[in-house]
């Protein structure tokens, strides 16, 4: 595997691996309106990093654990309706981030690259990271495929699904666990502050071109891959940070895909004959 000696190749493989699972998973996040939920979950990742150093366990495992626990706490709190959901998520997201930053400051900062955690460090992906990303990504994709139909059914109408025998709560719990895994592996690529954009932007681009949920998921994966490749190339060409470049590429794809861009174009550069038509009655 001489090929993997090249850091650019490793970055591409890792990024594509994450994009392939982030697209389909992100579709559910968009359909279920869980973008802020996912963002809150990823903000807790920093706590996981700090915990991993404290307990001397694998960092990815620490992140998965912290994200999963946060998700379960979130699910229970939203059910209890202590606060409106958006206020609750806003509170917890930034509380978790602050707590994570404080906890990290107690660690040996020489061993932790804070900027890498926040914005990703795809160009420094090691072979070990790659194994985690590809293994975790494949596992997440496999589990998502297994729960696809019950999850889709519950997303369309939860009660109908329950009456038809879908074990809705179990399905959600598995879904949230898959989210935790994907957040953990995507963190290396774009960092915890940008993870949610890897999950939300590709489905947003794919929506207009899809007539079935499966086509949308496949297109979202494809958009993610294009963003990763484009972002890494741009980063190498113009010496920009790789993670933010990937997200920027995805955003450009989104803007271009909007019907609005056509409208905007015609507004800025109107064709005269259209502007001054007349009625004689």
């Amino acid at each position, binding site marked *: 595997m001489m090929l993997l000696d090249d850091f650019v190749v490793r970055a591409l493989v890792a990024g594509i691996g994450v994009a392939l699972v982030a697209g389909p998973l992100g579709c559910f996040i*968009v*359909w279920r*309106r869980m973008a802020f939920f996912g963002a809150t979950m990823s903000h807790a990742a920093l706590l996981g990093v700090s915990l991993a150093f404290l307990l001397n366990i694998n960092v990815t495992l620490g992140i998965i654990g912290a994200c999963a626990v946060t998700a379960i706490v979130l699910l229970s709190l939203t059910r209890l309706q202590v606060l409106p959901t958006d206020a609750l998520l806003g509170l917890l997201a930034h509380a978790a981030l602050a707590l994570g930053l404080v906890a990290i400051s107690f660690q040996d900062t020489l061993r932790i690259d804070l900027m890498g955690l926040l914005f990703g460090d795809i160009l420094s992906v090691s072979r070990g990271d790659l194994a985690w990303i590809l293994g975790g990504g494949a596992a997440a994709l496999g589990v998502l495929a297994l729960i696809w*139909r019950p999850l*889709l*059914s519950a*997303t*369309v*109408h939860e*009660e*109908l*699904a*329950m*009456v*038809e025998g879908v074990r809705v709560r179990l399905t959600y719990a598995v879904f949230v666990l898959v989210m935790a895994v994907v957040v953990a592996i995507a963190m290396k690529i774009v960092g915890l502050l940008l993870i949610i954009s890897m999950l939300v932007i590709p*489905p947003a681009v794919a*929506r207009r071109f*899809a*007539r*079935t*949920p499966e*086509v*949308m998921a496949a297109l979202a994966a494809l958009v993610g891959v294009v963003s990763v490749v484009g972002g890494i190339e741009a980063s190498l060409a113009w010496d920009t940070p790789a993670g933010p470049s990937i997200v920027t590429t995805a955003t450009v794809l989104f803007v271009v895909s909007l019907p609005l861009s056509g409208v905007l174009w015609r507004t800025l550069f109107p064709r005269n004959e259209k502007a001054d038509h007349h009625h004689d009655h």
Partner: protein
Amino acid sequence: MNIANAQRDDGREILIDARGLTKRYGGYAALDAVDLSLRRSELTTLIGPNGAGKTTLVRLLLGLERPSAGTVTTAAGVRIGYVPQRLHVDEALPITVRRFLALGGADRSAIARVLDEVGAAHVTDKQLQTISGGEMRRVLLARALLREPDLLVLDEPTAGVDLNGQAELYDLINAVRQEKNCAVLLISHDLHVVMAATDHVLCLNHHVCCSGTPDAVSEHPEYQALFGPKAAQTHAVYTHHHDHTHTVAGDVVPLGKDRP
């Protein structure tokens, strides 16, 4: 209270038996000691004013919520088809009617057959968000029928549908029930429309005000107090006739061809 329970105890198999169902939210009792049995091939209508606990009762019967007190016993192997009051699918989720029906586990040919049965074959490949309220009702009914249910539970199946559409939907539900020989539990505000086709009426206002045959219930003082004395005389509206009908697509169909 149960005026007619004795006379309707005709040996039909009980599919769901509820005893003393009570549901409290905080200190407020949405349902108070409700008894109800649903029997094979019987059409039971649940009527009552807004906020009377009709939907709560259905949710308890379906097992979507647990009662604060009382029991729901469902006979072994009973399959329930549920038609919810509304279905909102997010714009972000692209899904055709066919795919929506397949979510229940049905195959292509069954989907085509049932959509034809409910008169909604023309929306098969449309996006779920683009069909009309009446079409949506038929599609939801199709989803329930695809389960080959012993019991069909319909929560206000004509809400938001115009008067003609309502009569058509009730005709359809009645035809389906006779053909499949399944029990039906219907929540309805349109009591005068559904009365004639109903075997058993349960009038609910947190507790069971009265229950029995449509005739017995419509003469019951508690029913008249809830719905006014006029309601008692209007329940024959359903029995009017047309010599033709319309498909959902608007075509004229002479009666007697595809419907009894």
